[in-house]
């Protein structure tokens, strides 16, 4: 059953389930699925290749202010799935009977919220993609993952609301290795393969590899003037997104941006962050059926503005939801550009570190938004505006208030859209759009 057919199947299944409801029951169903091809490469050869078809549906069975939820994997056979769903509804009724009222229960009740968002695409035939990728890796040590196909999400309830999201894409996320941990990372993603564009990316990686071949410098722990490329900055804002914009985390004082709330701490004037659903590639509705606005401004003029609010937090704290998911983290985070010309970044850096990627970040003091992590992939020592040599990996440990606040020299005038290549549950639909950041002093510790 194709992704498009799953949309109709969800409709039929929920219509059937609605007919099985009793009393004043309300049913909501949230579906997520993928039809994906995955090809994993190492040393230019195929490590593992295969396909995954999955369709997971979460059902919430509500009566009054009591409810229980259950998820099932759909077999896509109406007879099997109706039997599974009937059994699930029966179990949820029994479970619900044993539970107290849920004071924070919230679900969409307006069937005018039905919507669709479809990003059509035509990825290449997987066999062709494998050949093309292997050709690009000829003579190089290529390692990475090619993922392609449909991802989709749907919402349907017994009140008649229907929402559908579908995206057909490919994402080749790869590295060229020179030796040991010296490598250049790159990615090529889209809806249709443009061989010229792919070739340009491969050529760029090849040129970076030539620079990496120079003898590396081993820098001692110190403060260094540093340029973070968008992919490196992404790691920092991902950490800020771990509770930083969540209403629940704010109200329970667990936000890493606590000092912005309690002490009026600020980031630099030019920092503006928003959850920009309209500019992203994620669903524009969440799992309880609430619509996401085009944009929620999180930080403006360096000061905290709004939180992401899930329906549950909205009930708990008496505010309106803005369509956030249960974990209240952004899916389409955007940082506004600054006025540094990307072409002049090395000149502006002068002498210091050009960091292409950061890696494995975590909080060393969460309440202070102090974060530690490693440099990775293409990181270079720069002198007089010229790249001198690759730098061996360094550990940083610094606060967001320094890096994006008092020590921020500027942000580039161009931003880059970075699609999340992660595939833990399935292929992610999250993305960020970010500039690069020039920092006067970044603290490196190991």
């Amino acid at each position, binding site marked *: 059953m194709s992704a498009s057919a799953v949309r109709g199947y969800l409709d039929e299944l929920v219509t059937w389930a609605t007919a099985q409801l009793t009393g004043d029951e309300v049913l909501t169903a949230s579906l997520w699925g993928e039809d994906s091809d995955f090809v994993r490469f190492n040393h230019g050869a195929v490590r593992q290749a295969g396909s995954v078809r999955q369709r997971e549906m979460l059902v919430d069975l509500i009566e009054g202010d009591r409810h229980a939820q259950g998820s099932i994997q759909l077999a896509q056979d109406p007879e099997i799935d109706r039997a599974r769903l009937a059994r699930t509804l029966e179990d949820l009724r029994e479970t619900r009977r044993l539970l107290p009222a849920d004071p924070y229960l919230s679900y969409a009740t307006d069937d005018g919220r039905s919507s669709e968002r479809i990003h059509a695409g035509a990825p290449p035939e997987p066999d062709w993609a494998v050949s093309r990728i292997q050709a690009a890796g000829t003579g190089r040590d290529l390692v990475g993952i090619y993922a392609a196909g449909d991802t989709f999400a749907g919402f349907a309830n017994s009140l008649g609301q229907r929402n559908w999201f579908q995206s057909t894409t490919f994402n080749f996320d790869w590295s060229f290795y020179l030796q040991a941990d010296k490598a250049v990372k790159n990615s090529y993603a889209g809806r249709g393969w443009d061989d010229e564009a792919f070739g340009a990316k491969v050529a760029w990686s090849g040129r970076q590899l030539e620079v990496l071949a120079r003898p590396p410098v081993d820098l001692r722990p110190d403060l260094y003037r540093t340029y973070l490329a968008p992919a490196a900055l992404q790691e920092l804002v991902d950490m800020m997104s771990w509770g930083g914009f969540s209403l629940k985390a704010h109200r329970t004082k667990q936000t890493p941006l606590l000092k912005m709330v309690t002490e009026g701490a600020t980031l630099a004037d030019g920092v503006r962050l928003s959850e920009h659903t309209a500019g992203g590639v994620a669903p524009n509705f969440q799992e309880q059926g609430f619509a996401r606005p085009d944009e929620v401004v999180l930080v403006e003029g360096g000061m905290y503005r709004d939180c992401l609010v899930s329906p549950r937090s909205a009930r708990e704290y008496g505010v309106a939801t803005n369509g956030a998911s249960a974990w209240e983290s952004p899916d389409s985070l955007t940082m506004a550009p600054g006025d540094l010309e990307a072409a002049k970044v090395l000149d502006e850096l002068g002498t210091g570190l050009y960091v292409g990627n950061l890696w494995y970040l975590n909080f*060393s003091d969460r309440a202070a938004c102090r974060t530690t992590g490693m440099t990775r992939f293409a990181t270079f020592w720069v002198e007089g505006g010229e790249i001198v040599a690759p730098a061996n990996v360094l550990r940083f440990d610094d606060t967001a208030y320094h890096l994006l606040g008092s020590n921020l020299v500027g942000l580039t005038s161009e931003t880059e859209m970075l699609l999340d290549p992660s595939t833990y549950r399935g292929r992610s639909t999250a993305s960020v759009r970010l500039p690069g950041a020039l920092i006067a002093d970044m603290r490196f510790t190991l």
Partner: protein
Amino acid sequence: MKSAIHPLEERFRAALPADVDYASIRFSERRGEYLTVRQGVVEPVTTSLDAGVMVSVWAGGGHGYAATSDLSPAGLAAAVERARHWAAVTVGRSVLADGIPLDHPVGSYTSPVADPWDTTTLADRVDLLRATDAQLNRPDGAAAADDRIVDWSAWLSRVDTDQLILTSGGGRVEQRIRNTYPGLRVTANDGSNTQTRTYGAGAYVGQGGREVLDRYGFGAAAERVPREALELLAAANCPSGVMDLVLAPDQMVLQIHESIGHPLELDRILGDERNYAGTSFVTLDMFGTYRYGSDLLNVTFDPTVSGQLASYGFDDDGSPAARQYLIRDGILERPLGGAVSQARARAAGTPIEGVANSRACSWNRPPIDRMANLNVEPGHSTLDELIAGVERGVYLQSNNSWSIDDSRNKFQFGCEYGRLITDGELGPVVRNPGYRGISATFWRSLNGVGNADTFTVMGTPNCGKGEPNQEVGTGHASPPCRFAGVEVFGGEE
């Protein structure tokens, strides 16, 4: 919670292709129940049923897989055809050109369960959590709530996994895993100071039923955890400097995992993870000679420990599980590498023995080299003796921050709870304690290992790795351990 294995087995067997070099079907059905009570409110109760198969085909030197939740005969046939297709596409392009390193095993494994959850009702389990949650903002059973405690919750998750592997040569492995994941979390705040204390940082998990809660003192922890959260709120920042370090078992979990487990994964050493999880400072030529740690360091891969989170009888490629030393008396002996990785190392000219650690997170991901139970074996010291041997240092518990470079060498870890040690005596509590080091030298500073009485069997439920990404649970057991001359630090002043 009844399994679907037996009604479907004949259908799976019929779907296995006979005209290829090797084929397998791995069926997995996971049934979960997730309960949380937060601040007196029962959070939405969720159950889950996740079932599907992965078909693997080896043919003509190629290898492909297809995973599907469609378990109808037509759905299985379609999956077989997709797996065949991928096997054909990869002929002459695979990292493993010759031979199929897989067998046709027969056997079974069932988790030991002394006190099954099925003898309790949902209402019983929710009541247990409500009673526990109600204690979490009242330290040590105080009558009144402490308003410095701003968030608290208690949870209990249980996941039953039934798995069946059938192979084209008559192999049949059936495994029934029963995992229990209890948890407590208390957050206290004063202005810009927020401190969170948990129940073992998520490490008090394992196979079994209700006895898992008793194993780790779940009931008593409901009094201790809020008290310690408030202690942290009043504590000074951990001092900075080079000093001795004693790590409690629930921090050793993370230390073992990140700086022994991941570097020893053979697929990392062979380069598979370089685009994502990273490479390793360990190379193939080190096995048999490299000094990983001091003489006191003994590390086993042991999926046979009763009740540990990642115990099993066979890995997901069907290799029978057995206890093996990875590091003995400080010397590196063997990697964490399953049958496929061992074959690749042999093909590359490095014959090396590994372990049965090819694991997949579910039916929808192919097996890769993972940790299972990776344990530091006990030594001869009591905890008091470990502390007594420190002139100036810290005793750290419960991981809350983990970061390590892509070669698994330069690390920095943080803990929830620290105590100063001065002249062999435990002193005041300190907050935001952290330490950093380099794997290649850190384990050589090991100068004290707790005895069998201090040995604690634990695990971590979420280890991420692989492309496509996978998250699995791993088991870690350890006594407390002491390290000399480590760089320690605290939080922002």
